[in-house]
C-alpha cells in the first residue's frame, strides 16, 4: 500500500501542486498526510473518494481513507 501511494497516486497529485504521503495502514483504515496545495483544498473529500476508488480498482482492497491536512505555517489562518 505504501509503495502504491508513493509511486502511483502521489505522482498524479504532485502534478497539480499537491502532495500526499503515506502515514499508516492497518488493513482497513489508510491514513494519508496531505501537504502543499492539498492542505488547503476545499473539496479534499472528493480526492479521498478517488483514492478509495483507485485502490479498489488497482489493488482490490476496499479501504477507508483518512486524510490529515498539514498546512505550512503561513496558511494556518486559511480556511
Amino acid at each position: 500500500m505504501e509503495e502504491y501511494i508513493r509511486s502511483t497516486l502521489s505522482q498524479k497529485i504532485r502534478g497539480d501542486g499537491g502532495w500526499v504521503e503515506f502515514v499508516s495502514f492497518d488493513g482497513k483504515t489508510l491514513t494519508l498526510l496531505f501537504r502543499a496545495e492539498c492542505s488547503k483544498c476545499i473539496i479534499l473529500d472528493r480526492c479521498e473518494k478517488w483514492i478509495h476508488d483507485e485502490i479498489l480498482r488497482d489493488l482490490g482492497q476496499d479501504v477507508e481513507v483518512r486524510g490529515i491536512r498539514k498546512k505550512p505555517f503561513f496558511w494556518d489562518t486559511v480556511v
Partner: protein
Amino acid sequence: MAFVKVVRRSMRPEEWTDLRYGWIKRALVKDRFEITGLEVRDAHQIAENQYIYDNDYRPLKQGDVYFTPDGSVFIRGSAKIPEELAGQKTYFMLHTAAEMLVKINGRYAGGIDPNRDRLPLAPFVREDGSFDLEIEAFNRSKPDDERNPDAMSSRGCRQIFTGAWIVTLREDLLKLFYDLTILLDIAKSDEFDEDYRTFLNRELNAALNLVDFDTWDGVDAALDYIEKHIYQNTDFRSSGNVALVGHSHLDLAYYWRRIHVVQKNARTVLIQMRLMDEYPDFHYAHTQPYAYELLKEYYPDLFDELKEKVKSGQFEPVGAMYVEPDCNLPSAESLIRQCLYGQQFYRREFGITVDSAWLPDVFGNSWILPQILKKSGVNYFVSNKMSTWNDTNRFPHNNFLWKGIDGSRIYACVPPTHFITWNMPSQIMENWNAYQDKETGGQTLSMFGYGDGGSGATEEMIEMMHRFDKLSVMPKTEHMRADEFLHRNFDGNRNLATWDGELYLEMHRGTFTTKSVLKAFNRRLEFKLRTAELLSVLRMKKGISYPYDVLTWAWKKLLLNQFHDILPGSHINPVFEDAVRDYEKVESVLDALIAGQTVSIPDHETDVPYLHDAFHFADGLDETGRRHAAPAAPSDLKPAARKSVRLFNPLNKARTGVTFIEDEEGDCIREGKAGYFARAALAPLSAGDVTLSASADTSWIRSSSASEGICVETPYYRATLNPDGSFASLFDRKLSREWTDGGFNKLHIYQDVPGMYDAWDILPNYKEVEYNWTVTEPLHATHCTGTVAEFTVKLATPSGSPWTMIIRFFRESPAIEVEHITDWNEKHRLVKASYGINALSRELVCDTSAGYIRRETHRNTTWQQARFEVCHHKWADFAEKDGGVALINEGKYGLGVEENGYSLSLLRSNIRPDVLSDIGHHDFCCLIVPHEGDHVDAHINDLAFEYNVPPVRTDAADVPELFSGCTFEPLYLESVKLSEDREHIVFRLSEQNGTRGQMKLPCTVTLTNMLEDPEGETDTLSWTPFEIITFEVPVGKI
C-alpha cells in the same frame, strides 16, 4: 455613562443595489436546453500533446464527478439548436473551473475556463443548427489564484459536471449588467471622489427601481436612466491618460509543468482570436516565441489563423526574448541568445523584428540588459515588478530611460500597477494615481487580461472599455497595441528621467539561491555550450560539419529552463524534475560534442517524472532522484606516479591557476570524482601537455595542532583554522597582512521563514534566529600530496543533516578551495558562508557576467538597507586599493552584503511551492582568492573563468588555429559560432574590466548586431568600457 455603539442592522441602500445586481447576473440566460448524450474519457498527459488514456468513453451527465489529479478529459457529443431558438443568437455554455478547448464541427470555436463559460454557436453550426462537439479539457488552474471568485468556489482536482447547454441571453439585461459592473466598481472604490460615489449610489438605486425583477420589464428604462443621469453627467471631473493593452501572462511552468502549457497557450490564443472576431477594435499582445513555436507545432490551424491576425494588426507579438527569462541569473550570452532565437522566430514566421522586451513578472533586471537589448533590435523595455513589489523603497519612475553598464540607454516602462488586471475602473484609476511620471512620461500603461496560466482578456473587459469614455470621472483611456503605446510616449521624448544602475527588485531575494542544483546546471551548461560551439568551429577547419541543429536544440532547452519560474526555483516538484531531465540531456549531448562525437537531437520521449521520495532522498539518492555512487576515499586511490595529458584551453586567456583534472587514476577526490590538481599552464585557445604528478613530497606544507585549532603554513600563508573549519587567522606571507576580521569561511545556519513567498524570499531579518552546528569531527588533515593539502571537518545541523567541509591549500597557487558536501534534509533553513575581511572598503564588487557592478556595503539609507542580498555571477571581491579577498564560485548567485565583506548563500529549504525543495545530496566548491591590488590588477575575472571553464582533453597533436591565432586579448571571447545563415563564423567579444582600447584584426571583418545583421566593416576593433562587440567573417576565412 456607558458608550453604546450604534450598529445599523437594517439593509443599506448599497446592499439593496448589490442584491439586485446579483439577481441580474443570475438572470442573464433566457432560454437553456441541455445537451445530453455526452461522453467523456480520462487521460494523463505524458509529454507535449501525448496522452495515456485511462479508460474508454463513458456517458457524462449532470452531477458526475470528472477530472482526476493531474488528469485531462476528452468530451464528445452532438446536438442541434432547437427550432424555437431559430433566429436568435445562441451560445454554448459550460461552467467549470477547468480549462477547455472547444471544437464545434471540427473547428476551434473557443475556450472555456474559470473566467468565461460561453461561446457563440452561429459561426460553427451546420445550416440545420446541428453540430458535433469535441472538448479537450485540463484541470490545471493555479490552485491559489484568488483573483476570480468564481474560480475559487469550484477549484480542486475533481470537478462536478454541471451540464452543457445551448442558451440564449437577455441581451438588454446583459447591457445593464455591464453598466452596473463598471459603475458599482467605481462606487466601491476609494480611488474615486467620494461625492461622485454618493451620487452613483443614489442614481443606480433610482435606475434599478425602474426594473420589475419578476417580469424583467423596465430594463430599457433603467438603461435609459443610466445613460441620461450618469453617463451624460459632467459635474464630476478627473484627469489622466491611460493606455490599455490587452495581455495575458503565461508562466511556461509554475504550478503546472511545461508540457501542460501547450494547451494553456492554445486556449489563450484561441480565446483572444475569438474576441477579435467579435470586437474588431480589440488588440492583444502575446509574448514568448517559444509559446508561438508550441502553437505552430501542436495547433497548426490556430497558428495559421494567428498569422492572419498578426498581419491585420489585431494580434501583436511582443517580447523579443525566446521566453520571459529570469534576468538576474542567465549570463550575457544566454540573454543574447534569448533575443537571437526569439527574433529569429518572429522574423521567419511573421517577417517582423519585435522592438520590445516584455518581462512583466521577472524578479529584477541585470545592469547588462540595456546593451544586449539595444543590440538585438529592442528599443523598449517593459517590466512591472519594481513598482508594485518592492518591499522598502518606491521605485521613482514608471516611464524613463534606463542606462546600462556600458552607457547604452533604452526606453523603459515599469508600469505603476500589476500586469494582471481585469480592466476595472478602480484598477485604471489606481494606475493613474500611482503614476510618477505624469509630467514627463506621457501616457501610463495598464495591462488587462487574466494570467499566470494564460486566459487573457474577456468579453466583460472589452465591454467595460467601451463605456469608459462615457464617464467624466475616468481618466482618458485609449485601447491600443503595445508598440503604439511605446512609440507614441517614448520616441523622441526629451523629458524622460534616467535611471543608471541595475533594476534591483526589493523582494524575491531567495531566488538567487533556491534550487541550488538548477543554478549549478545552468552555469555549467552555459560554459559547455560555449566550448562545444568553439570546438565545432575549429573542427570545421578539418572538414567536419558544424552540428548546427543539435547546438540550436541545446541552446533552446537551456533558454527554456531560464524561464522566470524555473531557474529561480519558484515551482512545483515535477517542474524541477523536468528541468533536471532537460539539463541532463543537454549535458550529455554537449559532452559528446566536446569529445568530438557525432550527436543527433534526442528523440521526443515521454516526460514521466522521476520517482522522488523525501524520506529516502538523503539515503544515497542525488538531487535528481538517482542513486549516486559513494566517492572513493583518498586512501583507496592508487595514483600513477607521473603522467601527462594533452589538454585544450577553450579560454582566450592563458591559464595560470591550479586546475582539477578528472582522471580515474587521480590522487584526489573532488565533487565525487577522482583526478589530479595540476597547474595547467596553457596558452590561449591552444593545446598543450600537462603533467599530472602524484608526488608524495609534502614538504611544502606544515601543519600542527594547537589548542585553538590547526596551524597551517604554506608558501603563501600562515593560517590558523578553528575546529569548525572557519579561519581564526589567514596571514599573507607575501603581503605581510592579515586577511580575516571576524568569521571567515564561517558557516551559519539561519531560520528562513519568509511566509507565503517561501521559495522566493529571504527577509531582511533572517539573521535574527541562528542555530548552532555540531562539530562531529573537528577539522583535521585528511590528505596531502605534492600539490594539494586537504583539511576536513564534519558538522551536523540541529536537525541532523550532515555537512562535510574540505579546505584545500595549494603548493602553486594562493587560492584556497572549499568544498561543501551535504545530505540536506531540512525545512526552512538558510545556510551561508560568511567572510569577514580585514580591509576597509565601502563597496562590494560583483561580477555580472559582462562586467562588474559595485554595491555599497554601508546601510546609510533605505536603498542600501534593502540590498542586503544581491545577485552576483562567478565572483565577488571586497578590497582596498592595495588588496582584498575575492570569492569565486561555480554556480552560486546569492550574496549577502556585509559591512566588512560578504556571505555566500549556499542552500535553502523551503516548502512552497515544492515541499522537497533542495532536499538531497549536494556537493559544490568555491575558491577564496586573497590578492594584491584591486580585482582588475589581480585578474580575478580571468581566474573565475578558469574556475568555471575546465580545459578539454584532446588526442589531437594540434588543434587548428582560430582566426590566424588571434586571441583577442584583453577582451573576453564570449562566443564563437556558425552564423544563423550558416555562411559566416560569428565572434562575440566582451570588455569586462571597464577599459577602452583598440585592436588590429588579421583581416577585415563585418561588424554585426547581436541578431547577426551586418552593420559595417573594419579591420580594427575599438571598444569602450563593458562593450560587447559582435563581428563575422566568411566561413572560409577562419
